[in-house]
C-alpha cells in the first residue's frame, strides 16, 4: 500500500495528549431516509489526539466526521464539541464551525478568490480580524505549508497538492482547536500525496487535535495514537496503530487490512 509518507519521520515525543475532552459523541445515530448510516456511535476524543478513521467505502466514516461540524445532521444522540452542545441552535453551530477546521477531499477552495483572499476571508468576516492582521496570519500559515510565493495566484493555477496545502492553511487561519480531514489525499497524484502528508505530520507534532479519514496507513502508523475501523455505520474496532495493524481482532478488520495491505 502507499508508504509515501515515510521519508519524513514524525517525532512522537512531541505529541502529547491531555485529559481534557475535545469531542464527546454519545449514542449518535443518523439515517438517510430509511437507510441507517450511523449506528450508535460512541467516541471520546481528548485534546491533542490524532485519530485515523478507516473502513470500506460507504461505511459512514466521512458522514461521521461531517456530523461533528454539522455538515450532516444527526437525528439521535449527543455531540459535544469543545464544551458546546451541537443542536439546531444556529449560534452554537456557528461557534463550533469557527473552532473546527475542515479539509475536504476535493479541496473546495473558492476559485473566484486569490489564495490570500481564500485564507483571509473567514478571519475577516467571521472573526472580525482587521484585514492587515488577517493577511499577516494568512502569510504565516502559507509559509508554513510552503507556498507563500503563490499567495496572489488563483486556485486554478496551482497543482492539486498545492491546492490541498492551501486548503489546510485556510482552515488553520481560523486558529481552530480541532481539525477534521475528509480523505485529504484521495484526489491527489502519488507525487503530491507526500507533500500534503508532511504538512499534516507537522501539524500533529504541534499538538493539534486531528480526526482524519484516510487510507494512508503509513501516515496512520507514524502519527495516529488511535486507529478506528468502521463498517456498515458502526465502529467495529479501535486500537493503537501497532496493535491495530499487527494484531487485528475482528474478522472484518482482518479482511479489510489484508485487502489494502496485501499488494
Amino acid at each position: 500500500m502507499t508508504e509515501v509518507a515515510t521519508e519524513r519521520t514524525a517525532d512522537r515525543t512531541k505529541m502529547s495528549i491531555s485529559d481534557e475532552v475535545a469531542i464527546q459523541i454519545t449514542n449518535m445515530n443518523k439515517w438517510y431516509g430509511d437507510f441507517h448510516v450511523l449506528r450508535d456511535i460512541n467516541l471520546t476524543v481528548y485534546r491533542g489526539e490524532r485519530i485515523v478513521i478507516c473502513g470500506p467505502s460507504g461505511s459512514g466514516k466521512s458522514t461521521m466526521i461531517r456530523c461533528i461540524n454539522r455538515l450532516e445532521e444527526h437525528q439521535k444522540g449527543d455531540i459535544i464539541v469543545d464544551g458546546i452542545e451541537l443542536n439546531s441552535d444556529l449560534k452554537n453551530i456557528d461557534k463550533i464551525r469557527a473552532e473546527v477546521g475542515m479539509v475536504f477531499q476535493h479541496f473546495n477552495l473558492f476559485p473566484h478568490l486569490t489564495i490570500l483572499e481564500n485564507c483571509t476571508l473567514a478571519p475577516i468576516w467571521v472573526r472580525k480580524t482587521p484585514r492587515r492582521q488577517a493577511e499577516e496570519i494568512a502569510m504565516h500559515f502559507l509559509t508554513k505549508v510552503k507556498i507563500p510565493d503563490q499567495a496572489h495566484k488563483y486556485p486554478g493555477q496551482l497543482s492539486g497538492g498545492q491546492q490541498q496545502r492551501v486548503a489546510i492553511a485556510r482552515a488553520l487561519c481560523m486558529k481552530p482547536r480541532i481539525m477534521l480531514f475528509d480523505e485529504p489525499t484521495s484526489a491527489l497524484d502519488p507525487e503530491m500525496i507526500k507533500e500534503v502528508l508532511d504538512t499534516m505530520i507537522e501539524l500533529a507534532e504541534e499538538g493539534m487535535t486531528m480526526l482524519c479519514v484516510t487510507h494512508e496507513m503509513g501516515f496512520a502508523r507514524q502519527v495516529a495514537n488511535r486507529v478506528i475501523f468502521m463498517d456498515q455505520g458502526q465502529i467495529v474496532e479501535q486500537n493503537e496503530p501497532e496493535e491495530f495493524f499487527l494484531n487485528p481482532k475482528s474478522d472484518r478488520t482482518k479482511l479489510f487490512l489484508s485487502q489494502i495491505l496485501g499488494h
Partner: protein
Amino acid sequence: MSDTDARDLAYVASGTIPPSPPPSSEVGVVHWLRENLFSGWFNSLLTLAAIAIVVMMVPPIIEWALIDSVWTASSLAECREKGSGACWAVIIERFNQFMFGFYPPEFYWRPILAFLLMFVALAPVLFASVPRQLLWFSLAYPVVAYFLIWGGIGLEPVESRKLGGFLLALIIGVAGIVLSLPIGILLALGRKSHLIFIKTLCVVFIEFIRGVPLITLLFVANNVLNYFFPPGSNIDLILRVVIMVTLFASAYMAEVIRGGLAALPQGQYEAADALGLNYSKSMRLIVLPQALKISIPGIVNTFIGLFKDTTLVVVIGLLDPIGLINNIRADSAWNGIIWEFYAFVGFFFFIACFSMSRYSMYLENKLKTDHR
C-alpha cells in the same frame, strides 16, 4: 535519437530533446485559410456561396442607404424626385420627436442631461477601474433623473403622456434592467430556500409571471392595476408599466440565476459552512459571485430581451419609437414611408443591445479566474 524497440529492452534517453518550431503548413495565412475556409469540398462550396451572397446583397444596400439617399426634403414626394434611395429626410425632420416624443422642446436639456449623467452613474458599476466613491452618485442617480425628466423642486413639471420616443424606451428599459436583477436574485434564492412558505411564494410568482404573455401584463398595468392601489391614488402609467416589465423580467432572471446556483459544486457551499460563514455571508461572498458569473450570458440575454420588449408598450397607447412611426406616417407629407423608420429604430436598438452583448463578453473575460 530514441531508437527503442523490443529487441533492445534497456533504453536511457541521452538528453532532453529541445523544442523546435512547427512545420510551415501549421502556421500563417495559408494555413488559416485552408483550415477555416477550404478544409474540404463541402466547406469550400459554402465559402464560395457565402461570398456570392455578400456580393449580391451588400452593394444594393449601400446604394439605397448611402449613395442614392436623400437627406433634406420636406415631403416624401420631394424625396422621390431627388433620388431613388432612402429618404432619411423624414428622420432628420422628426429627429427630436423620435428622441423625446412630445416633451416640451424648451426643456430638452433636461432629458439630455439625465442621459449623460446616466453614463457617469453606470461607469463605477460597470468598470472596476472607476473610483469607488462615484457609487454614491450611482445610488442618487434615480432620484436625480426622476426630477430632471418629470420636474419638481424648482423645475417645471412635465406630464408622463408627453414622454415618448427613445427617451421612453430608455426609461422603461433601464429601470427594468436595474430593478429586475436584484429582484431576480432574491426570487432565485427564495426558490432554493428551505422555508416552505418563502419557497412556495417564489415558485408561484415565477411560474405565474413566466406563464403569461407580457402584453397581458401591460393591459393589466393599463386597466386593472388601479384597483389594487388605495382609492384616489393615481399611479402614473409609466410607473405602472415599469413595475410590470420589471416583474416580468425578474421572473426570467430568477430562473437564469437559479441555473447558476445549481451549477455551483456542493463543495463550495460546504466549504463556506465549514469556515463558519452564516447564510447571508456565504451567499454574498462565496455563492452569488460565482453563480452570477456563470449566469452572465443568460442575464444579459434577459436584459436584451427586456429592452426590446419595451416596444410592446405601443399596445397600451404609449408613444415609444414604434408608436411614433404610426404617428408620423399619419402626416400627409410623409405618408407612404416604411423602411426608413424601421431601419432607423432597428439601428438604435441594435446599437444598444450589441453594446450590452460586448460588455458581457468583456466581463466574462475579466472574471475568468478558473484557468480551465
